[in-house]
């Protein structure tokens, strides 16, 4: 518990960190609370079409006669859910493979490292486009696709962290006393690589939200749910006549990604005080 307090204290003291916390908290609040907020039905098409922003419709209405503010806030649910899901898949996969490679070393490490290296050279976004086009793009599919195209970043970092923990004396001592690899992993390695893994997972959420937005913008998002990328995709056609349709969802998207990036960066500065000078 005191650790949590310490982290919060750092975030408040770190200028960018607190902005990140506020932005993320606000967006998560909107995403979770959307059904409770006094908003018109996001799928209702009963309003006049193309109304500019006004007190009744602060973000205007779109080409189908839906309220843009309502759709934008409901969009937070989809974008953040996909971001979270994808980042979790990506981090679990990355942390697992990274830890195994770092811990076992030898041929296993060499194989995993090569796979990571090759993956990092792949044009990730195109791989995601290709897979979304071929296998369909339901929300679950999108999470898996983004997860398995972004795991190597985390894997490389966790592998590095594992290697450096493994060299430390207390781990060496534990091994000398006959501890098995599994015990070492559970007792010493995992607790020590948790912090960087969590920080990079948070950065990964921002990245996943951007990738999902890119896919949705290309028409490869889940057609049944309004993510921010889909809203921008729809709004682009009307940028000449109704700027508000694309502008507001995009603004929320930017603020959310910014929030996760600031929070993640700030956590990295907490773990590694050397970065604080920068």
């Amino acid at each position, binding site marked *: 518990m005191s650790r949590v307090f310490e982290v919060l204290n750092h975030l408040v003291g770190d200028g960018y960190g607190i902005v990140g916390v506020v932005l993320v908290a606000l967006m998560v609040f909107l995403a979770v609370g959307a059904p409770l907020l006094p908003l018109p039905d996001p799928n209702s098409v009963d309003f006049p079409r193309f109304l500019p922003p006004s007190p009744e419709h602060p973000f205007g209405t779109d080409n189908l006669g839906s309220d843009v503010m309502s759709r934008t806030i409901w969009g937070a649910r989809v974008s953040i859910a996909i971001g979270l899901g994808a980042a979790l898949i990506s981090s679990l996969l990355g942390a697992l493979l990274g830890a195994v490679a770092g811990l076992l070393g030898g041929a296993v490490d060499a194989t995993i490292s090569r796979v990571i290296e090759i993956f990092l*050279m792949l*044009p990730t976004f195109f791989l995601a*486009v290709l897979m979304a086009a*071929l296998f369909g793009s339901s929300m679950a599919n999108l999470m898996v696709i983004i997860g398995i195209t972004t795991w190597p970043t985390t894997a490389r970092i966790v592998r590095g962290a594992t290697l450096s923990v493994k060299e430390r004396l207390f781990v060496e001592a534990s091994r000398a006393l006959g501890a098995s690899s599994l015990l070492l992993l559970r007792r010493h390695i995992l607790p020590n690589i948790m912090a960087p893994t969590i920080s990079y997972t948070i950065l990964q959420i921002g990245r996943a939200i951007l990738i999902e937005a890119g896919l949705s913008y290309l028409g*490869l998002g889940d057609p049944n749910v309004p993510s921010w990328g889909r809203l921008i995709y729809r709004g682009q056609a009307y940028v*000449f006549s109704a700027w508000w349709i694309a502008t507001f969802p*995009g603004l929320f998207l*930017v603020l959310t990604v*910014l929030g996760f990036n600031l929070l993640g960066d700030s956590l990295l500065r907490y773990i590694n005080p050397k970065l604080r*000078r920068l």
Partner: protein
Amino acid sequence: MSFFAYTLKRIAYGTLVVVIIVATNFVIVNLAPGDPAVAMGGELVLSNPEYIKAVRERWGLDKPLIYRLLHYLYNVFLRLDLGYSYRYLEPVSKLIIERLPYTLLLTITSSLLAFALGLLTSVISVRRLGKTDTALTASSLVLWSVPVFYLGIMLVWIFSVNLKLFPAAGLIDVRNPKTGIYYVLDVLHHAFLPVTTLALALYPAYYKLLRDTMVEVLSEDFVMTFRAVGLDEGRLVRRHVLRNALIPAITLLGLQLGYSVAGAALIENVFGWPGVGKLLLDAVYVRDYPVIMGVFLITSITVVAANIVVDLVYAALDPRVRVGR
């Protein structure tokens, strides 16, 4: 290891990587739901029995997957045949080569611009830490979080819709076609917004890398020595600090250029720019698989090649790298 041996080793490894990527790509496409014959030959297959036979024979579609994979690799690497687009009914390689100059105009120009802008602003940041630095850092953090296509749409809204300074889309003014030098000027006029968008999207990475490295170098002992002997601060940053920070930034530029073949797909889509990225996206919509795989292959080759070049430059500059692996 000699530099020559190191070069050979990297190239051999790079070739292996490209083969693995192509094979993975092939398996992904073939695992996808639907008949691979339709995927390879497209809709024509359904209507034209002559064509289906030719396509099946050419790509060995009646054979098991492993045989087809080898056949595909043979076609791609030994016959340099990427197949035919069913939508355009033209060789995939021809389609890509036609569009390449337009894409490279966008990607190379914007990468260089982003690099130059990053260089300039990071030096300003380091020279006057404090408010200017905070403002530049904050704005680069925001830009880093903006999806490139949204940035493009917003620039269109500002510069095309409201200020009417630049065209919103296309390569040339189709209602008023021009020739000679005026054609070039027209293309440049149309390229302005996509190039600006892409440069702004690429810029934060250069700024952050250069600034952070320079701040780190500034805390090193030799800097203190230079300051102690009274070296002019501007000269110190330009001659000694920046020089140390340039190597990672040039690496980034090299890797970035590796993505220049299709790296502008989203931007080309926003601005209706007839480049390789747009070709790929259009192919995705109509499931033009030979084109998708072809663009993916070319992109992979350039990315891997850029990686090798960057590695080799490193090895040439720093002999320790050669021993490392």
